[in-house]
């Protein structure tokens, strides 16, 4: 199961890198969103997938699943959600202001 998820992570990272390298601003943002999904899966896989029962006091089991990666992922998801939302608004403002979403045309430092 871990191997399968790891391959999936690899595929997601590949897709994300392809999107990040494009010139279109929206694609770059989508790329960063997919990249964050890949890392969340990686954190979960690194903690080990389901190894036992839910880590609750009432359960009487010999082994419990590690709950910490899920707590980490939850925090990371919220953060990446906020950043993606901010980026989308920024992309919209840039489009309104400059009339382009092509990163090649947004290059360079002008002294106004």
């Amino acid at each position, binding site marked *: 199961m871990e191997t399968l998820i790891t391959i999936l992570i690899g595929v997601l990272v590949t897709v994300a890198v392809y999107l990040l390298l494009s010139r279109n601003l929206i694609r770059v943002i989508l790329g960063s969103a997919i990249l964050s999904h890949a890392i969340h899966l990686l954190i979960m896989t690194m903690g080990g997938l389901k190894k036992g029962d839910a880590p609750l006091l009432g359960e009487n089991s010999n082994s419990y699943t590690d709950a910490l990666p899920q707590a980490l992922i939850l925090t990371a998801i919220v953060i990446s959600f906020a950043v993606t939302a901010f980026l989308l608004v*920024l992309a919209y403002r840039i489009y309104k202001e400059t009339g382009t979403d092509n990163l090649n045309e947004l290059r360079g430092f002008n002294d106004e």
Partner: protein
Amino acid sequence: MMNNIIAFPMIIPLLTGIILVFFRNKVIVQRIISMISILATLGISIYILQKVLSNGILRLDFGGWLPPYGILFVADSFSMLLVVTTLVVTAILLVYAFSSIPKAFEKMFFYPFLFFLIAGVVGSFLTGDLFNLFVCFEVMLLSSYALITLGGRKIQLVESIKYISINVLSSWFFLLGIAYLYGSVGTLNMAHLSMRVAEVGQGPVLTVISIIFLLVFSLKAGLLLYYWLPGSYSAPPTVVAALFGALLTKVGMYAMIRVFTLIFYHEPQITHTLIGIMAVITLIGGSVGAIAYNDLRRIVSYNVIISVGFILIGLAVSTESALQGTIYYLIHDMIVKALLFLIAGTIIYLTGKTKIEKMSGLIQNYPVLGWMFFVTMLSLAGIPPLSGFIGKVYIGQGSIEAGAFILLGIGFLSSIFVLYSLLRIFMNCFWGETIISVEDEVPIKKGMIVPIVLLGILTFGLGVGVEAIAPYVSDAANTLMNPQIYIDAVMKRN
């Protein structure tokens, strides 16, 4: 030692930020609240610093979860010195903001964002948990995204997209490092990590993970990977640029110093050599940049990069005196970079120009500003009795002890480039015939010159009164050199 007080330097700015949101249209109220809050936080932080020196490292386990299970804050001399400096610099920058930030910005939540930024910076200094460090970084970065785009001028938007993209990517690498580290040693508490890494030995896998962290913190600090820095530090309003120049790269450097002295200190011939090489390239690149441009904001931004390279020479060498020098220089650099950015911003405000060759003879119109720039220049170049001197002496002494003469030579050579790049500004902008006639002269606001003079006094005071902070700095360097002190303070059950 458990103590609830060490949560205050982060909680007060956070609450202040939230409270300020409700006073959106009452600018005067916002100013009063933010000033009171920052001074109160500063007072508490100085008290904590004092307590750390007398009682040893303080810690706070949130929710009563004992380490290594819960998240905790740890206050040692190193982090508290940086917290205190951050708050001093912010308090002075606030004064400058009162007179320079347009009313429209103040109504668009400038102060709340500033306080969230401070909460993130202080949280990063105080946390004792690697994932919590990531969260504090994000708090700081999201506020910085908002601050860099505030105003929405075209150049700000275009520069901010680079700044945000590069930071999103580096946050991704941070999570990657955390995931691998958790997978290989099964903990994220820094003290516990240090113990576990020492137990299993820092093998090839852990060294690779440490290099992922090096990559992340280099992106944040501007070590070698600084291409995003000059552009994004040139775009925002003066106060925001000063805040970024003074604080943000320092947080990256703090994290790097912490991680490579506490956790990954077993393979210095790989990791610390790499840091040394990166520092040298940064120094060369920064020096070339600082003398290549004619744009005031660019020159100032490249000076930030040079200081990053110089400070991390101390980490690359990692002897006790080099680390002392690093701490002195970090404190000095926070103060003097804020000062440099404020002066550059004020010059641009007064003349309306950014190219240095289009200005001349400003010292006849604005003598105080000119002399303060002169003081800044000497302080950055490391002339005694100003504050840059002591840090350079200690880093130099540490490099000699370790026999790192190439690092030493290039580090000190960079001072000459700093001096030359700033001397060029001084000659072009302040000397010569004045080209501003008396009736065209824009009057300099009191609220602008007072913070500049305050920071100038501070850099002088820090140079002359270095004895006053010497016990704190040597305690901090001692803790950095002996990770066991930190581990004992965190893992001790009491």
